[in-house]
């Protein structure tokens, strides 16, 4: 089962479609066939309408409709009846077509969903080493864009040719029935077209490839010319260079022109043959009519019918091209999803019931792991680790310790020998069971984009614990099952809190606190809590408590109990003073915006705000200041590619807006006397938005002086006095006595800003806050808010050591039977390493702990060590013995 299509991903797109939609396809084909009957009627009826209804040939009026003598009608009524019949046939034919199309759409979309799901399921089963060769950049477009094109074709794979060929055939039969000669005339040119067109197309395709090649060569040459421009100039070879480009562009010209010609030739041939056919009809058909062996009605019907042939014929030719494309793309995609040594699909089968314990001894028997044919990672390794034993695994880099850790976690699969845990072979344990009972943390573990709490609980999600809640979800799952997706509700209860020792979701925070304390992360999470926000309406009690903390903190800052260490570290919000550590915008508003119209850049266009600025004569000054800021930003950030993280973190101007600001700068070059020219409304707003973000103490641009601050304070006063009531409601003014919902917990306690540029200011202030919160027994509340912190994409809002600690906590919280640690604390600093190692040894009593590490000095903390070198187990025994005996461990300890 190495790479076989155990999930039905066939090599051929047609086989794939048949395998997963044979029933639906057959049903649709039946409908298509039925539609042809009605289509035939719509072809045939016009003849009767012409001949009998209009010309009254071959019929005696009144006519007995239905042959039962009930309806006897004259010619007019007869004509109308035929027309009505014709209309009904059209309706039925069209309706069937519409129904077929909708079925076909469903079939195609389901196949697309299934294919996507299967490819994703395969990615989850890829052998881990494969990801070193394959980047997500390669996989993502395949699963998103490319699959979509394939999926679009899959719905059509059988239905489209059948439908179009059916129409063609029906028309051809109709023509043959009218007159064999005419039928023959109608189809006579198709073989020719079917032969020539693909031939011509083939050449066009080949030319397309040549064109790509030629253009690629030209871009190489352009790079060369640009790189060597000084040489070209000083050696005077510009003429030769131009001659070279003349030649290269000539080649592209010839290829492109040939493509164009061939394409237009194909069009010409197709059109001529299609439009030439009616000539045959006029000629042959006209002759037959004159001869009397064909009615005028039949000829008109034949002409109409033949005209109808061009559409399906064109569709068929298109289909031919699409099928070639789709098959090729499908093969390419499938190719990428067949790596050797995939995890058997069976191990990913969803499981029910609780996972069996893995509390037996770990026995490696002649364990061999190859990376590829040449490279052996482990060879003939034998050992037994007793349940509950703590073992260090050491040795030089790439000597086998990493491979052993990865193989124990089944991230590498043995190529020979086996690992058994108790009486089960590790290779046969399902992924879910293994995930529940074995913990693994690698050297740089991944953190998901979710809250800290959700990341901790991520390892408790091996199986779904409840069914879908409502009918709507159940219907969605039923549809999912039809498309071969997993019919389990992602919104149901997955987290198994009991496994962590928590009673329920609410109790989980307590367990989280214990585990995070163990891995030295609780303090960080507490800090994240301080940076978090709460809604005071929903958590009135917490908000009130935080206000009490604010009061307590103020007493530490000033007054009789003032703490001298805090001097100069906090700049409190004071209505009468400009705050150097807050932005100009904050200083003017003296509050936190509650509404988007007063937030960030929007403030620069807020009419009430602008009115006050103008009244105080400050608008022009701020625009001029904005221009200076824009100049600096453009200078600093113009060289960075759009989307670089520095834009978000440092620039006042978003990457997308940078060109606009560059343009504004050129439009607003100062006049000779230093004043600015007239600037239009939009540009003014853009410039005005910049200085509002300026924090004098932080950005050090030297634009804010004492007089400016005084004027800014006047604006602040005016804003507070003059803003209309509706506008005031959109700002949470800094008020010493009320909780500010738009500010973080810490900001609410501080009621000011920590001064920039004071070393250890954060630490000292943090310590004081902690003391204040402890005195009020508020630490747990803040910690819970910290657990809500969103870690960002790949945990990017956490530092590398924080991510690593969180990953260790995630492995510990599920209380595994076996914990495999693969250099998992190397990213931590020395003192944290020692603390975390102690805590892990202490916290895994009763568990089997395999501690693989590059740091041999930690081996003496364990009773037993396995030493690996060159893929072999070279030493195995009590650390005390190995330390004393000549051998690798002794050498390594001596080297450190």
């Amino acid at each position: 089962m190495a790479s076989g299509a155990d999930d039905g991903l066939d090599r051929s797109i047609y086989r794939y479609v048949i395998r997963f939609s044979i029933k639906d396809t057959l049903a649709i084909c039946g409908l298509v066939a039925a539609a042809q009957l009605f289509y035939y009627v719509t072809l045939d009826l016009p003849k009767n309408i012409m001949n009998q209804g209009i010309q009254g040939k071959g019929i005696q009026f009144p006519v007995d409709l239905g042959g039962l003598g009930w309806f006897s009608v004259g010619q007019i009524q007869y004509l109308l009846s035929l027309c009505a019949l014709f209309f009904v046939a059209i309706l039925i034919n069209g309706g069937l077509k519409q129904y077929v199309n909708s079925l076909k759409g469903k079939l195609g979309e389901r196949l697309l969903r299934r294919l996507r799901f299967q490819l994703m399921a395969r990615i989850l089963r890829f052998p881990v080493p494969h990801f070193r060769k394959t980047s997500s950049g390669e996989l993502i477009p395949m699963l998103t864009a490319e699959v979509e094109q394939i999926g679009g074709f899959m719905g059509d794979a059988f239905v489209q040719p059948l439908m179009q060929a059916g129409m063609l055939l029906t028309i051809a039969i109709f023509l043959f029935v009218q007159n064999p000669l005419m039928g023959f005339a109608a189809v006579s040119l198709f073989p020719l077209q079917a032969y020539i067109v693909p031939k011509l197309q083939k050449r066009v395709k080949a030319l397309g490839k040549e064109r790509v090649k030629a253009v690629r060569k030209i871009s190489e040459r352009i790079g060369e010319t640009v790189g060597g421009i000084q040489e070209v100039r000083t050696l005077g070879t510009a003429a030769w260079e131009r001659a070279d480009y003349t030649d290269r562009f000539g080649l592209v010209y010839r290829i492109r022109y040939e493509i164009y010609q061939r394409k237009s030739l194909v069009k010409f041939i197709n059109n001529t043959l299609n439009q030439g056919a009616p000539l045959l009809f006029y000629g042959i058909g006209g002759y037959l009519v004159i001869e009397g062996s064909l009615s005028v009605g039949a000829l008109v019907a034949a002409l109409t019918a033949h005209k109808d042939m061009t559409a399906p014929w064109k569709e068929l030719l298109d289909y031919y091209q699409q099928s070639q494309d789709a098959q090729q793309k499908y093969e390419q995609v499938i190719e990428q999803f067949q790596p050797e040594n995939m995890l058997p699909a069976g191990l990913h089968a969803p499981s029910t019931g609780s996972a069996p314990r893995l509390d037996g001894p770990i026995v490696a028997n002649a364990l061999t792991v190859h990376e590829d044919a040449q490279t052996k990672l482990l060879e003939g390794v034998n050992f037994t680790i007793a349940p509950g034993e703590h073992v260090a695994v050491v040795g030089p880099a790439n000597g086998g310790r990493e491979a052993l850790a990865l193989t124990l976690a089944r991230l590498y699969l043995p190529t020979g020998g086996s690992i058994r845990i108790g009486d089960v072979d590790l290779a046969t344990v399902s992924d879910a069971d293994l995930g529940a009972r074995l913990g693994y943390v690698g050297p740089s573990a991944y953190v998901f984009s979710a809250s800290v709490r959700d990341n901790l609980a991520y390892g408790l999600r091996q199986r779904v614990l409840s069914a879908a809640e409502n009918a709507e979800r159940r219907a969605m799952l039923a549809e999912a099952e039809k498309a071969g997706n997993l019919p389990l509700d992602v919104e149901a209860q997955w987290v198994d809190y009991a496994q962590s020792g928590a009673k329920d979701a609410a109790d989980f925070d307590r367990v989280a606190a214990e585990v995070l304390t163990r891995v030295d992360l609780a303090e960080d999470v507490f800090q994240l809590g301080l940076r978090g926000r709460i809604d005071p309406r929903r958590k009135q009690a917490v908000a009130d408590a935080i206000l009490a903390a604010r009061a307590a903190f103020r007493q530490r800052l000033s007054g009789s109990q003032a703490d001298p260490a805090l001097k100069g570290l906090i700049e409190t919000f004071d209505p009468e003073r400009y705050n150097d550590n807050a932005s100009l915008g904050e200083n003017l508003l003296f509050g936190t915006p509650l509404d988007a119209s007063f937030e960030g850049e929007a403030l620069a266009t807020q009419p009430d705000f602008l009115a006050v600025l103008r009244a105080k004569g400050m608008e022009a000054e701020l625009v001029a200041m904005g221009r200076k800021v824009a100049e600096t930003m453009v200078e600093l950030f113009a060289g960075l590619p759009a989307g670089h993280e520095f834009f978000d973190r440092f620039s006042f101007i978003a990457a997308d807006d940078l060109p606009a600001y560059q343009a504004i700068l050129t439009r607003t070059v100062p006049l000779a006397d230093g004043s600015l020219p007239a600037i239009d409304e939009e540009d003014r707003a853009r410039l005005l938005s910049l200085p509002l973000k300026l924090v004098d103490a932080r950005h050090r641009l030297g634009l804010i002086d004492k007089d400016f601050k005084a004027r800014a304070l006047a604006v602040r006063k005016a804003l507070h006095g003059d803003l209309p009531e509706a506008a005031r409601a959109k700002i949470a003014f800094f008020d010493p006595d009320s909780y500010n919902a738009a500010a973080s917990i810490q900001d609410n306690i501080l009621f000011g800003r920590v001064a920039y540029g004071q070393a250890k200011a954060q630490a000292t202030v943090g310590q004081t806050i902690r003391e204040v919160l402890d005195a009020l027994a508020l630490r747990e509340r803040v910690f819970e808010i910290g657990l809500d912190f969103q870690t960002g994409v790949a945990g990017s809002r956490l530092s590398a050591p924080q991510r690593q600690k969180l990953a260790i906590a995630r492995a510990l919280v599920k209380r595994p039977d076996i914990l495999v640690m693969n250099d998992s604390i190397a990213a931590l600093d020395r003192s944290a390493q020692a603390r975390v190692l102690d805590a892990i040894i202490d916290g895994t009593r009763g568990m089997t702990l395999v501690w693989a590490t590059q740091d041999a000095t930690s081996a003496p903390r364990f009773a037993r060590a396995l030493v690996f070198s060159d893929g072999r187990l070279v030493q195995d025994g009590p650390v005390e013995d190995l330390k004393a005996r000549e051998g690798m461990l002794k050498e390594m300890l001596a080297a450190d």
Partner: protein
Amino acid sequence: MSLKEETDALKRIPLFANLDPAKLKLLAFMSQRLTFEPGHAVFQQGDAGDAAYIVLDGEAVISIDTPKGRIDIARMGRNEILGEIAILCDVPRTAHVTAATEKNLVCLKIEKNDFMGLINEFPGMAVEIMRELARRIVNTNQQLRQAVAAKG
């Protein structure tokens, strides 16, 4: 105390001397200006190195732990760089750095992640820095050779 002054300080550091002035200004803008009170620690031996510091004003004392206790080994003044190895590779701090007792120490703190981000964006910077480091190795080797020759 402005960005310009800090950019000039960066220019005087040999490690950065050959870099594009615009990039240095960006580096200065991204960096934090920090004041340490006399006697306060900038970093401790054994800490994870996460930033380099450029002295803008005052003096820093370098000291190391020895079996006989902590001893001072050097003082660094204006326009000198502290802990620059830390922003290039993952090593723990090899010494203690403390603000001298005479006056406040003012430093520009260059975060490792930001510096690396800048280098990733402008590979030309990496080349210049590589050259400077190679030059240092050549110097060290020469000194070692001279020292060995003098001994022998």
